[in-house]
């Protein structure tokens, strides 16, 4: 792994905070970072790893910050990037929003965290749930040294403290699936997949044991049951609380949940999905005079379901002017700074078809700047519905004290990277 030092820079390249872990790379090397970045940017060859002499900078950008790790070894790149993203994750959990201001306002906590997250270039305690037990923003308020050792640092159940109490014991389960689609200009689906995640909001007392039942195809095949629709999940990732050995042996998802909100698992389904909202577009560009756009949107999902907050974003040339719209439903708006027409439909029932026409003027002088062919993108959200058909069959909650707890389940399908290419 070996990152020699970690820096947080603002957009101008000024160091906001840094931590030297190994001392084998001169801390002044970071001054070369920004000039290197500018140089690469000019050449159009930005790259997540840059070198100056024997020093390599590996960096990521998050809102208005650069997080940079330096090393002079042939270290493990994927681990360094994972660590930088872990930093972002931990900081975000602490400060809600990770940006220049939050770093400056909380620099004490940031120093403390940097100290715990890594030692001598090796990641140490990176679980934010554990860290939150003994590094708190309230720490800046004065109190005499907390003499309590966080049990979780060495505890078997590191993600949950003992002695949690709720009046009403409930657990909310959100099943969220986003679909990624890429459709070619001639209307053929190039690639499509579903990325799903199951999120929990746990409000349970004590140390409850939970078991989640899904209509997992592998499980059904194992138990020999075969009724109803099942789902084949790939790349299943679990929160560390899930007992992987049990999942590996009999596909049972059993765990002691962390308190509050957490992502229990994520999965990917790599099947051919019919694009839920199908777009047909005709974009005619008459040079020097006008652009005419006709977009037809069709809901290709069940009639009972309704897609909410549908946004169809249609690209227009950057020099277009005087927009005119006509829509069969919803309303269209021109966003000149993004060169887009955004057509918003508040509610879009399945099986329906809507139409939007737009007309733009073009200047008589040709714009010689080369423009790319941005695709049409669509955003939407369909509640009470999952594309994959995944279902929570049961959620069993067992606690020593034997209380009754209620599980609530909610399904949402939303758009992920949903692109339809145009031929203009």
């Amino acid at each position, binding site marked *: 792994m070996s990152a020699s030092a970690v820096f947080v820079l603002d957009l101008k390249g000024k160091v906001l905070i840094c931590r030297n872990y190994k001392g084998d790379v001169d801390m002044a090397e970071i001054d070369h970072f920004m000039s290197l970045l500018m140089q690469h940017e000019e050449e159009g060859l930005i790259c997540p790893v840059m070198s100056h002499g024997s020093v390599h900078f590996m960096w990521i950008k998050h809102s208005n910050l650069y997080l940079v790790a330096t090393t002079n070894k042939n270290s493990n790149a994927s681990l360094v990037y994972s660590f930088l993203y872990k930093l972002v994750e931990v900081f975000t959990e602490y400060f809600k929003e990770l940006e220049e201001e939050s770093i400056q306002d909380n620099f004490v906590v940031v120093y403390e965290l940097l100290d715990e997250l890594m030692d001598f270039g*090796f990641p140490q305690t990176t679980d934010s749930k554990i860290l939150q037990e003994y590094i708190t923003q309230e720490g800046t308020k004065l109190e005499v040294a907390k003499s309590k050792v966080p049990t979780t640092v060495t505890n078997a159940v590191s993600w949950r403290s003992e002695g949690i109490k709720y009046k009403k014991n409930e657990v909310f389960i959100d099943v969220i699936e986003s679909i990624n689609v890429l459709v070619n200009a001639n209307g053929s689906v190039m690639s499509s997949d579903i990325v799903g995640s199951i999120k929990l909001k746990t409000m349970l007392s004590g140390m409850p044991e939970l078991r989640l039942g899904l209509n997992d195809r592998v499980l059904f095949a194992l138990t020999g049951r075969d009724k109803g629709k099942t789902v084949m999940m790939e790349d299943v990732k679990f929160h560390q609380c899930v007992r992987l050995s049990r999942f590996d042996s009999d596909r049972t998802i059993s765990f002691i949940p962390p308190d509050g909100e957490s992502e229990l698992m994520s999965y990917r389904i790599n099947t051919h999905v019919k694009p839920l909202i199908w777009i047909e577009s005709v974009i005619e560009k008459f040079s020097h005079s006008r652009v005419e756009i006709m977009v037809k949107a069709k809901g290709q999902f069940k009639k009972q379901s309704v897609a909410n907050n549908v946004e169809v974003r249609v690209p227009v040339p950057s020099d277009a002017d005087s927009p005119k719209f006509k829509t069969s439903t919803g309303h269209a708006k021109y966003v000149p700074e993004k060169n887009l027409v955004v057509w918003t439909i508040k509610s879009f029932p399945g099986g329906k078809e809507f139409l939007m026409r737009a007309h733009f003027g073009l200047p008589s002088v040709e714009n010689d700047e*080369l423009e790319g062919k941005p695709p049409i993108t669509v955003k939407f959200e369909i509640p009470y519905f999952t594309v994959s058909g995944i279902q929570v069959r049961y959620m069993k909650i067992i606690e020593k004290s034997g209380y009754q707890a209620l599980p609530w389940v909610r399904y949402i399908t939303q758009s992920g990277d949903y692109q339809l290419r145009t031929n203009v």
Partner: protein
Amino acid sequence: MPYLSGEETVKELRRALCNPNVHSDPLRHRNAVLRVIRAMSQGVDVSALFSEMVKACATVDIVQKKLIYIFLCSYAAVNPELSLLVINTLRKDCQDPNPMVRSLALRNMTNLRLSSLVEYVEQPLIAGLRDRAACVRRVAVLGWAKLHDLQPDSEIDAAVVNELYSLLRDPDPVVMVNCLRALEGILKEEGGVVINKPITHHLLNRLKECDIWGQCEVLKFLQRYQPQSEDELFDILSLLDASLVSPHPPVMAATVGLFLSLCGSLPAVGLSALRRAQGPLLAACGSGSREMRFTALCHIQLLLRSLPGLLGAHYKRFFCGYAEPAFIKQRKMKVLVELVNDDNVAMLLDEMKGYCTDVNPDTAQAAISAIGHIGRSYSDRSLEILVGLLGLKQDHITSAVVQTMRDLLWVCPQCSSTVCLALEECEDTMQDAQGRQALLWMLGVYGERISSAPYKLEVFIDDVRNETSAGVKLELLTASMRLFLCRPAEMQDMLGRLLHHYIEEETDMCVRDQALLYYRLLHCGKEETEKVLQGRRSDPSLGVLIGPPAESISQWAHSFNTLAPLLQSTFKPDSKPQLSDALRCDPVETSGNCPDKQMDSSTHIQTSSSAAPLSLSVSPALSPEKFERLWLQPRAQHDEHAAEDDCLWIEESIQCPAVFQCSAQSLQASLQLVNVQTLAFTPAHARPWKVYLYTRMQLDSRGSTLILGELVHCEEEPVNEKERTRAPAAAPQEEKTVRVTLRQQPRDDETLKAFLSILTTVLHTHSSSNETLP
């Protein structure tokens, strides 16, 4: 806060820290410390406050302690004497009942990085190793690594090393992993931490307890273990199967790396592991973070060097999204080029065509040259797209297309008619010097087939005064000369003007000299000029071009899952620092992966006959272009053993009856077994039959030597000077003789002879096995 300069800030802060009222109020005291740290992070030099901060260190407030320690560690190097004062506080903290305080003190004690303090640190570190709190042990273990890093020359006590080894059995997984890391650093001289069988099994059993960082680390260390039996190997592999398909890309990558190193002797197992890891690999390519995607793509490129067919079915996963950053798009295209096959070529080219109009000119250029690359095997389809792109009349696209066409023509001369037709239509003048150079080269070489060529050159010549690039000037000269040779009537006047201008007015010496040279050359007459200007070109009959060989996994396995594959985009491959590593090929490799027993033994006989063991290797790979350049370098004399300064030519005849009748593929396969790479073949029954090949040979201490070779078989009498080299009595065997021409650089007669005998053996074996076939 009013604006204060650095010095005033320091004064102001010192006043606050020394104020006895502040001292008595913990809240104000902490605020004062906080201001110091804030000033420090803002880049103010507050090192002058060191002694004040040392005093402030004696506090019960743990946050204040942390802040002061951060301060002390940052400035300890400039205040080594004063740092001695902190040691007492730190040592006292090491006895604190609160484990958080103990670990904090211990960590910062080692972070001070002062060799003068080492003697005070050792004792608390030893105590820390036996502490009952895991968080203290974690820190103490790494503390030893830091200590060693500070004083690399002084030995760490053997007792401590033993204790660290025993801590590998610590119940806390992080302590265990830290022990591995620390031992690796401490024992670097002796080759790092020892991974024996009990340790391996222990680590494997506890792998699941570790977090992803720990897992990656353990997997990396396990690479060092050599299983004693095949059964044990397979046990380990099956234990690791779950990690191989882990959804965490770093764990998956570390496992793949481990599999590759464990299966070094069983390439087939390594391959099947890679196949199994396909899913997670593809998932990593679609990961949410662009850096992870980039890393994954770089590693896939690495894998494809050995397994060209891998992932071919999933080529659509490498299509670019519109908003993806250029570095990912360009990597994806490089991968796509590797994945092209008969089934997907149409789809793939269609997709690539879309990228050619990307807003980022570099991406567009990369797409165009990718199409050119595909054109080497699918020239018609690719050329159609390239020609279509010329119609867009975009300056940077035209330039890239013209350059790509030139490169394609080098390799596939059969494309020339289409290209000439396209150039005929192309009216643009390009801004880009590279593009103009490419255009001029093509106009010169294929000028007789482009009717408008002189008019195109005329545009350049009329504008000669405004030309700034020396490369273009030289190319323009050469192109005009070449065109003059085939179309003198149209060119004479223009060439005269050009030469006159360059000789009289040009300031660039290179260009002027070149012009003078051509001018004098023209005085020598047409034949002489033609001989110079129209030298040997790639032989159009050499149709089949075999792509770079599939490298053996061991070529790159050591750099898998490190930074190196990512850096190759920023460095030119020639300046790769690990090139020297790649050259170091052990002799085992020559015959090691040789399934054909017969071939194997024959190589051995040959190698044993020469004094030193021979080691052939085909890497670093030699591109066909480079080969051609080297091959066409003029030979000084044509005597049998003509020697230039550092390169040696020899010609031999080998009698092997049927070798030229067998298929190119089988000969290539058998040559590859002894690590000789074939670059080009004539079709099987063409006459003269030719094969071009190369290999590199290890010279014991002086690096390696490159051998290029040509095998020729003519049914007719061989021509002119070559006759002398043949034995006079060879006439009846004439038809069964293959003439071998070898060029070696740097020269080394012995190895060349040895190579010749290997080659002879291979050809004999091959032709005899071929003869037995009907």
